[in-house]
């Protein structure tokens, strides 16, 4: 019996990477968080921990 006859719909599993690449807001999240954490926050932590000259 075909899918049309049973009314069932075929389910194609979309790979996780493609789902990420197809979602602009996940990409936006990654594109903001990665540089913010590794470049800005890590850098600020290093600068604020410089001891103040006596």
């Amino acid at each position, binding site marked *: 019996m075909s899918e049309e006859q049973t009314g069932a719909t075929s389910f194609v599993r979309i790979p996780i*990477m*493609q789902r*990420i*690449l*197809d979602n*602009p807001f996940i*990409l*936006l999240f*990654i*594109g*903001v968080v*990665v*540089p*913010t954490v*590794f*470049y*800005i926050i*890590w*850098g*600020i932590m*290093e*600068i604020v921990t*410089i001891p103040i000259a006596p």
Partner: protein
Amino acid sequence: MNKELFRTCPESGLQFHKPAETLMRTNAVLAVVILLFGGITALLVTLTRWPAVHLLEASQFYQVLTLHGVNMLIFWMITFEIAVLYFCSSTLLKCRLATPRIAWLGFALMLIGIVVNNAAVLNGDASVMMTSYVPMPANPNFYLGLILFAVGALLGCFVFLGTLIIAKEEKTYEGSIPLVTFGALTACIIAIFTIASGAVILIPTYLWSIGYINNIDAAMYRLVWWALGHSSQQINVAAHVSVWYAIAAIVFGARPLSEKVSRTAFFLYIAFLQIASAHHLLVDPGLSSEWKIFNTSYAMYLAVLASMVHGLTVPGSIEVAQRAKGLTNGLFEWLRKAPWGNPVFSGMFLSLIGFGFIGGISGVVMGTEQINIIIHNTIYVPGHFHATVVIGSTLAFMSLTYFLIPVLFRKQVMLPGLAKIQPYLFGIGMMVFTMAMMGAGTLGVQRRHWDMAFTDAMIGFDYPASAYTFMGVVGISGVAAILGGAAYVLVTVLSVFFGKPVGSESSFGFTTSTLTRAEPVVMPEGGHEAAGKWGFAAPGTFLLAMFFLVIFVLYYAVNWKYLASVWPIS
């Protein structure tokens, strides 16, 4: 869908949403006006750094250099990119633009910001250059203009994202968005990070300049400012790579060798391209080697890998398309018989070569902590970024313009003979210019110093005579490139405002090739590999890639050898 709001270009088949079309045109025209102004300042800067001419006084030089930097690196690029974002969303996805009124508000803020910022610099009390490092103060309007421009550009980015949502909801495309639109999305995401970083640092700096804040920490400023200053150039990279893919499809009907690989490369840009900003801070005290090396020599290399993927797949896709049309003799018939008289192609290909061979390789050298010290803060640095931003981005945008004049503005390209030679004059002039700058920088010539002779300095310093020769070459090639830029502005302005309308019988003014979109490539019998050689679908591109890698390794190794000689360990 209200069809009255849409126009289909009879030649290209592209569908334009009329409000979006007007916005694209307006942004593009404003961008070219800024380019004209930036080009005039470029001439003045070049004629001052040319030792035999040394045109401007010191105070004028820094004022003009500030105008040149801000207008070219921020205003021209981002204004043109907003037009590209609207094109890549509304036109390529065949849908209406989201909230045109918000887009107009963004445009107005950008325009006001440009005027306010330039007026502050022209007034003479904001000659702080683009970096505007604190505690060097500028007129508050300098920062205010940048903030207004950034807010306007941010609105443009949100309009782009909104248009993607509309296209998805109205199902104007199937599956994933086209690769060119995905590249524009990459540019948009980088732009949002860039603008947010700019807001984080420029708003407090503005408050400091009007007296509401006592102090801005210089190290903190540099850290956050470069997330704006360098990442803004990464918007350009993502945008011009998208333009490369678009032009390969427009001129040759080429399709990417692998959509998955190209999208993954753009994904690497999204995640890792912005942190390359760290290479500006490689000699800053206070930041650890771990931070510097992770950000520049580990994570950044993933973005470099992405650029090499694009640099391989774009010419590779062109080669496959050309071979499918029967240009299969030898390794390079496909390239030899490419439409070199069509500025859409020639500009794009020179952009690709210059960006990869000059900008890309020098960028990796600058991003390596140890060998960066050889050239840090020398004129090598502008040599590098003129290769990426001017040859890479500006030339790619120029080549796209020759396609957009008939398709978007519905005008024939005027002075077609000049348009044909323009990419060569501009591109080759800039290649010589950038390499001469790098040569001078390797000899230690400072990047921003008004007088390399240090006349009347208490402690003098004599550069070798060859440094003066290099700077002379910088002057000559710079003037040649500026003439190429002037030719672009002339052709564009004449075509857009005085050009003959494109009619159904028009030929776009070119005789060697048309600017219509090529038919998609048909798979040859036996597959693309059968049209190639040695089992490769694109053997010529593979050989070019190997040549690139050899140059890359040699230049990298030479710099380590040079480091050993300038800093002997005994």
